[in-house]
C-alpha cells in the first residue's frame, strides 16, 4: 500500500478571543478540534460541512497559513510548520491551492503569463523562452490558448479566471491541490467545465485533491472519500458510495436530506426531517457531542461524553454514540 500524500494527525487550530477595554478575553475558539485524516496519491477527499464548521480553516492549516495549536500535518513526508518559511517553501512545491473566488486570487496588474510563470521564476526553475514555453503548455492543459499569456485577468470570464488559477497551481507539478470551494462562485454550466477539467487533470497527473465544499452534489461527483465536519470535528468519514448510500451520523443524514435534488419526483418523495435550530457558536461549544443541541436521537450520554470516531465493518468511521452499525 502506498504512503499517504497528506496526513493530518489530531490537528487543532484555535483562535484567541481578544480582550478589549472593559472586556475580558473569552475562551479560545476551537475552529479545528482534533482532526485526523489522510489522503492517498491520486485520491480525492471531499470535505463537507456548513459555514463555520472549520473546513476552510483546516485547508488553510494544511498549507501552513494558520498555526496549529496541537497535532501535526505532514505533506509528502514533510511536516508543515507555519512559523518556518523554508519548510513552507518546500511544502508549496508539493501542495498548492485553488480558492473560491478567482477574481480575488489573481493580481489584476500581473499578466496571466506572469502569474502562471511566477512560481517557476522565483524558484529558478525556468526563465526566458523556456518559461514562456512552459506557461504555454500550462495554459493549454487548462483549456486556454498560449496567446492568452499576454492578457490581464480582467479580460477573462469567471470560469476562465478559475482556469488561470488552476494553471498557476499546476506550475510546480504539485502532488496535492487543496481546492477550497473552487466552483461555488461559478454558474452551473461553467461549474461543469471546471469539474470536468479537475477530473481530467487528476487522471493525467495522478495528483490528489482535498476538495472542500458545501455542495454535496458536487462532492458526490468528484470525491473518492468524503469527510463530514461539524463544529471543528469530523463526525463521519467514508467512501463516497458508502456515505451516500448509508449515512450513519445523524448530522450526515440531515445534511443529505436537506440538499435539494434537481429532480422534482425524487425531491418531493423525500421524507422531510428538517433539522431544527442552528449551529452553536464554536467559541461556546456544548459539552459532550457538539451536535447534541440539534440531534433528534440525543440522550444523556451525548450531553456528557464526546463520541470518538470509530471504525465500522465497511470501513466507515463514525463519531456517534447511537449510530447504527
Amino acid at each position: 500500500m502506498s504512503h499517504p500524500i497528506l496526513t493530518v494527525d489530531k490537528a487543532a487550530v484555535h483562535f484567541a478571543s481578544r480582550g478589549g477595554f472593559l472586556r475580558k478575553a473569552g475562551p479560545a475558539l476551537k475552529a479545528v478540534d482534533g482532526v485526523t485524516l489522510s489522503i492517498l496519491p491520486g485520491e480525492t477527499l471531499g470535505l463537507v460541512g456548513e459555514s463555520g464548521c472549520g473546513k476552510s480553516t483546516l485547508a488553510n492549516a494544511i498549507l501552513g497559513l494558520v498555526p496549529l495549536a496541537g497535532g501535526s500535518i505532514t505533506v509528502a513526508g514533510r511536516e508543515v510548520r507555519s512559523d518556518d518559511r523554508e519548510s513552507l517553501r518546500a511544502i508549496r512545491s508539493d501542495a498548492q491551492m485553488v480558492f473560491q473566488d478567482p477574481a480575488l486570487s489573481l493580481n489584476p496588474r500581473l499578466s496571466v503569463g506572469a502569474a502562471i510563470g511566477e512560481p517557476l521564476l522565483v524558484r529558478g526553475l525556468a526563465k526566458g523562452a523556456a518559461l514562456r514555453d512552459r506557461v504555454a503548455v500550462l495554459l493549454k492543459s487548462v483549456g486556454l490558448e498560449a496567446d492568452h499569456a499576454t492578457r490581464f485577468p480582467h479580460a477573462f470570464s469567471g470560469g476562465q479566471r478559475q482556469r488561470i488559477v488552476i494553471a498557476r497551481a499546476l506550475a510546480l507539478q504539485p502532488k496535492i491541490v487543496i481546492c477550497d470551494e473552487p466552483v461555488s462562485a461559478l454558474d452551473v454550466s461553467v461549474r461543469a467545465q471546471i469539474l470536468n477539467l479537475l477530473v481530467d487533470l487528476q487522471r493525467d497527473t495522478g495528483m490528489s485533491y482535498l476538495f472542500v465544499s458545501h455542495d454535496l452534489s458536487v462532492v458526490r461527483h468528484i470525491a473518492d472519500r468524503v469527510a463530514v465536519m461539524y463544529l471543528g470535528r469530523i463526525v463521519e468519514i467514508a467512501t463516497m458510495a458508502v456515505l451516500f448510500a448509508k449515512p450513519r451520523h445523524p448530522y450526515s443524514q440531515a445534511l443529505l436530506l436537506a440538499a435539494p435534488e434537481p429532480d422534482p419526483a425524487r425531491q418531493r418523495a423525500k421524507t422531510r426531517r428538517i433539522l431544527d435550530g442552528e449551529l452553536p457558536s464554536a467559541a461556546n461549544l456544548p459539552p459532550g457531542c457538539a451536535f447534541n443541541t440539534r440531534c433528534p436521537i440525543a440522550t444523556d450520554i451525548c450531553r456528557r461524553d464526546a463520541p470518538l470516531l470509530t471504525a465500522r465493518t465497511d470501513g466507515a468511521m463514525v463519531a456517534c454514540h447511537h449510530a447504527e452499525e
Partner: protein
Amino acid sequence: MTRPEPAGGPVLEIEQLRLEIEGAAVVDGLSLSVRKGEIVALVGESGCGKSLSAFAVLRLLPDAVTLAGGRILLEGRDLASLDLAAMAAVRGRDASIIFQEPTASLDPLMPVGDQIAEALTAHGMAPARVAMQRAREMLVSIGISDPDRRLAQYPFELSGGMCQRIMIAIALICGPRLLIADEPTTALDVTIQAQILHLIRELVTARSTAVLLITHDMGVVADMADRVVVMYAGRVAEAATAEAIFKAPKHPYTALLLASIPHAALTPKSRLATIEGTVPRPSSHGAGCRFASRCPLVEDRCRREAPPLIDHGAGQEAGHEAACWRSHEVGMLGATT
C-alpha cells in the same frame, strides 16, 4: 409533500416586458403569469435578466435600467404606469419582496420588532401598539420561539437564517397577494435553506399567496416550483410545469443546463455536459436566436430568425412552451451527452 393544485386566477401577469440599459435590451419580451397560490420559478444564469425582471415588478430598478415597454399587471392593475406615490402604497401591502442577503436588507439601527411593525403602520393598517402585537403573532406563526426577546433584538444579534425569517415576517405581515423571493436561500447553509424553504411553502400555501421565485439552483426549483420559466440572455427560452421541464426539456439551453448538474444517477467523475462559449453581450444581439452561438443543434435559420415562444405540448402536456426551431430534437441531446 404534495401541494394542492393552484386553481386561482392570475395575480401577476407580465406582458412583453422590455428593460434597457443605454438602449440595449437586457430583458426583451418577457411574459409570464403567476396564479393565486402558485409558485413560479424564474431561472437562469448570472446576467440573464431574471433579477432585473423581478425588481421591475416592484419598480425597484437601478437608475441605469429603464422600463422601455410592456405591462405588469397586479390583479389587473398596471404597475408599470403608476406614479411613485401609488407604487409606494403597493410595495409591502399588495406585493412584497425578500432578497438574497437578509442581513443587508434589514435596518441595522432598528430593533427587528419595530421593522416588522413598521410595515403595518407605514400603510396605515394598524396603530403602533396593535402593530407590535401583530408582529409578535407573526413571529409565533413562523415558528420563532421566545418572540418577545426577538422583537427587541437588532439584526447583528441574529443569524442569517433568523434574519431571513424576519424578512419573511415583514414581507407577509400585510397579507400581500404576491411575494417575490429573489434567491432567498442562496446565502444560507443547506440545513437552514431547508428550514426557510419549508417555511415559505407553508405560509404561501396557507395564505394562497402567489410567489415568483428567482433562483439559479435547480434543486430549489425541483423542491418548490409548480411552474418554471427559463430565461437566457434576456428572453424566455422555455416555460412549463416543473415536472415537464425536468423530464423532457424542449429547449437545448434547458437540456444542457440540467445535464451539467451533477446528480445521483450519474457515474462519479463522468463527463458533465457543458455549454461552450459565453453569453453574448446585450449590445451584440443580432436578429437570430440568442443561444445560436453556443447551441449544438444550431442551423442557418437559427442565426437569421429568432424562434418565437410557442406551445410544443399536446394533450396532457399542453402549456409546454419553448423558443426553438428544433425543439423536437432536444430530447436526443440529453441522450448523447
